């Protein structure tokens, strides 16, 4: 049965540590309930406790514990929904039930087995409370298996279960609770802050002592230095964990679930080593487990259904974690049936969560958000696996509690993707410190590609302008630029310095690159990310703040937000264009291009395959037909289009040369002449579109012969000049 002994052991350990604590809480909450002081939240809490124990034990194949837990869960579910009222006998039964769970867990801890005790009497008693069940016996307590308090602390294994000739416990090392303690996260937080302060004090002392010659003081300072660094590392280590720790149990969960549901699922996990703060790990553990189960249970279809839909029998579930833009991103993707928007709306209407009017107005994206409302579940049947209403709302609440966000993307039939973004609250990251406008800013190193320093003439000439958008040519690639001073509306650096030296920080955001021009590049440093107050949440340029070595605060730049504000990366639409262009480039590596300039000097190129001929016409030969300039050409009338007129204006006024240079373009027997300024060259090279231009007449830009060259959108220009050209072409 064990898939992997180590893994199994780890899972059991986790279950034990967690369950003992939560069952103690369960008992306390029960007492609160009994006294009638409980709020609505209390029942939710106890329900979740049991739900988790049931789920976790089910996952690692502890069916007996799962079965017992299940009975109580059903009862609590009724209580929660107000279908049962709290009575002392009910509470007693539930406490007894909690004791039974504890006994089983303790037995598990000591023997590795679930024990052979028989709980059918307890289960009967629990089930008797269900409405419609036979009236329960009067005796509230006083019978049942565990009236003897079994929660006696270890070591007293045999005594804990009366029915127990349990497997004699071999004295196997200290119990879980002896080697590990649970520490409140707030204590760790405080420790972390104190260490941060200590580091600052250390820095000051070390700086001071560097000037003294006193041996003892110098030695002491050095020791202080070393110890502080070690302390800092240890404290940080207590908080950081790779997300793989949480994921380790998913293969098993997925496998077991898939088997239970007769599905075939392949689980792919990427980014195991992504480190997360302990707080975050704790907070996302349950939501992630829930999402994974949901995906397997409701997302991925049965092999038969998948075959019918033309998909491979085996479904794919991908978990991916990565740092981006000062955030931890977690994506859970499946290629299952996706979310049916119509059904989501219908369900929400049924449950009275929205009005028909609202339903009609909802966009797809908004409709997906309904899934996160409390009490929402599109699945009719309550399975053992999921669908009990402890659902996506809890997932969302838990993630939002730590300042994160959840987003669903789905296409019916194609699968669903859940994107979780979590801020790096309290995480420690390496960062590059830069100065602009006299202020220091930290840039998370994950976004950093390289640094470029331009001096003297290079600084003045290296940056070119494409219709007002600054770009820099980085080894033949066009790099759009953003100026930090301008984006943040900071004062400019003293002008003298700015002209001589330009510092470009090359960053990537959302899969694209851009250069950030800053006044000064200082150093790299490990920084502790601290969240910004609510008042500043609206600023998407900043991911947080940090305290620098000198005790002052510096802001951490949110690279993605900054790039969006500066429009150096834009909508998804552009990205797909770029990808298309890239795909095209792969298919046909080298292209022959005609390079020419428009009459107002912009450097342009088109694929030579589009060119029928190059011609020169003396201006005298140009005639007019209506509004159109035409020229007689091989017995036909060739309409002429001045390319410059269909491009966005630049400084120089378009003036056609004499003779006029014309690129003849033919399509299905019809021709059109593109009047240009000057034919420059024909080059053969791999065309890499660097920058998608949302401008008329231009497809994008590329570096051709070391110069920025726009790719002319020939069909676009022709359509603009003569809308009928393409329509009438086939007929002609």
């Amino acid at each position: 049965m064990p898939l992997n002994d180590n893994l199994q052991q780890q899972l059991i350990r986790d279950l034990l540590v967690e369950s003992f604590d939560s069952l103690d809480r369960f008992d306390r909450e029960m007492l609160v309930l009994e006294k009638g002081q409980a709020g609505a939240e209390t029942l939710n809490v106890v329900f979740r406790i049991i739900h988790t124990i049931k789920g976790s034990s089910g996952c690692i194949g502890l069916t007996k514990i799962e079965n017992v837990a299940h009975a109580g869960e059903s009862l609590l579910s009724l209580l929660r929904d107000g279908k049962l009222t709290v009575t002392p006998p009910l509470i007693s039964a539930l406490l007894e039930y909690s004791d039974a769970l504890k006994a089983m867990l303790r037995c598990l801890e000591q023997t590795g087995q679930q024990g052979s005790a028989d709980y059918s009497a307890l289960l009967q008693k629990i089930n008797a409370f269900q409405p419609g069940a036979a009236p329960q016996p009067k005796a509230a307590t006083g019978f049942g298996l565990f009236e003897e308090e079994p929660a006696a602390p270890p070591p007293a294994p045999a005594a804990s279960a009366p029915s127990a000739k349990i497997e004699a416990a071999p004295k196997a090392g200290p119990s879980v609770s002896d080697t590990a303690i649970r520490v409140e996260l707030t204590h760790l937080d405080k420790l972390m802050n104190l260490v941060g302060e200590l580091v600052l004090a250390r820095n000051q002392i070390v700086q001071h002592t560097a000037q003294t010659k006193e041996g003892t003081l110098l030695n002491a300072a050095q020791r202080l230095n070393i110890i502080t660094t070690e302390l800092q590392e240890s404290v940080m280590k207590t908080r950081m964990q790779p997300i793989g720790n949480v994921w380790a149990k998913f293969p098993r969960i997925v496998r077991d679930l898939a088997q239970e549901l007769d599905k075939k699922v392949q689980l792919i996990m990427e980014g195991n080593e992504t480190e997360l703060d302990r707080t975050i790990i704790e907070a996302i553990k349950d939501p992630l487990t829930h999402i994974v189960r949901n995906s397997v249970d409701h997302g991925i279809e049965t092999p038969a259904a998948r075959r019918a839909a033309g998909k491979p029998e085996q479904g794919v579930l991908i978990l991916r974690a990565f740092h981006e833009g000062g955030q931890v991103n977690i994506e859970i993707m499946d290629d299952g049936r996706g979310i049916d928007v119509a059904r989501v709306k219908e369900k929400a209407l049924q449950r009275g969560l929205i009005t028909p009017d609202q339903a009609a107005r909802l966009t797809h994206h908004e409709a997906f958000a309904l899934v996160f409302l409390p009490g929402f579940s599109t699945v009719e049947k309550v399975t053992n696996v999921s669908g009990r209403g402890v659902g996506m709302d809890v997932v969302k609440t838990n993630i939002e509690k730590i300042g994160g966000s959840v987003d669903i993307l789905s296409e019916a039939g194609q699968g669903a993707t859940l994107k979780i973004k979590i801020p790096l609250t309290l995480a420690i990251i390496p960062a590059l410190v830069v100065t602009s406008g006299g202020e220091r800013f930290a840039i998370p190193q994950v976004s950093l590609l390289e640094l470029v320093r331009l001096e003297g003439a290079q600084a003045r000439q290296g940056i070119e302008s494409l219709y007002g958008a600054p770009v820099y040519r980085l080894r033949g690639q066009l790099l759009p630029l953003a100026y930090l001073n301008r984006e943040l509306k900071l004062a400019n650096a003293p002008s003298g310095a700015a002209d001589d030296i330009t510092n470009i920080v090359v960053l990537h955001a959302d899969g694209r690159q851009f250069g950030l021009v800053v006044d000064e590049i200082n150093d790299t440093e490990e920084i502790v990310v601290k969240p910004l107050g609510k008042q500043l949440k609206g600023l998407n340029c900043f991911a947080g703040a940090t305290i620098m070595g000198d005790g002052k605060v510096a802001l951490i730049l949110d690279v993605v937000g900054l790039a969006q504000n500066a429009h150096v990366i834009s909508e998804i639409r552009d990205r797909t264009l770029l990808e298309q262009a890239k795909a095209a480039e792969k298919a046909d590596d080298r292209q022959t291009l005609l390079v020419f300039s428009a009459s107002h000097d912009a450097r342009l190129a088109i694929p030579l395959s589009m060119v029928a001929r190059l011609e020169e016409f003396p201006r005298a030969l140009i005639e007019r037909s209506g509004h159109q300039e035409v020229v007689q050409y091989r017995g036909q009338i060739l309409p002429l289009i001045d390319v410059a007129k269909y491009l966005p204006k630049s400084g120089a006024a378009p003036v056609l040369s004499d003779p006029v240079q014309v690129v003849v373009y033919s399509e299905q027997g019809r021709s059109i002449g593109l009047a240009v300024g000057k034919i420059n060259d024909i080059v053969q090279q791999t065309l890499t579109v660097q920058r998608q231009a949302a401008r008329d007449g231009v497809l994008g830009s590329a570096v051709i012969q070391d110069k920025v060259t726009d790719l002319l959108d020939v069909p676009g220009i022709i359509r603009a000049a003569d809308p009928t050209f393409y329509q009438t072409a086939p007929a002609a």
Partner: protein
Amino acid sequence: MTNTKQFCTFFLNGLFFGVEVLKVQEVIRYQEMTPVPLAPGMIRGLINLRGQIVTAVDLRNRLELPARDAGQLPMNVVVRSEDGAVSLLVDEIGDVLEIADDAYEAPPETLRGTARDLVEGVYQLQERLLLILDTEKTVQPRTDNKN
């Protein structure tokens, strides 16, 4: 026997303000601040308060009072809010006053503008009036677009 409350008091542009002492975490002298570009005008910057980063709200700006003279350094009244500690920048710190509840009155109807939303009530003291601020509202970003 009337109940009394304690207030931490401070001055702003000659006006006398107070916040309940229980809401005040500490009062500190002027701290160097890191300005936050693009932030609303009421946010003067960020302060390092023993390793904790605290947002500093300029009360003059928040209450639509004229800006402080360039040379005048503000003091920090650090208050606890739902969103953690926030520092209120004030001109000068006054005493902690213990005031009987019966001197309390709702703000006069004639009070206008932002002050109307932020001033919870007024105590009539012998020599002057003490305006009590609702700290929770005060630290919230302004809802209108004015900076």
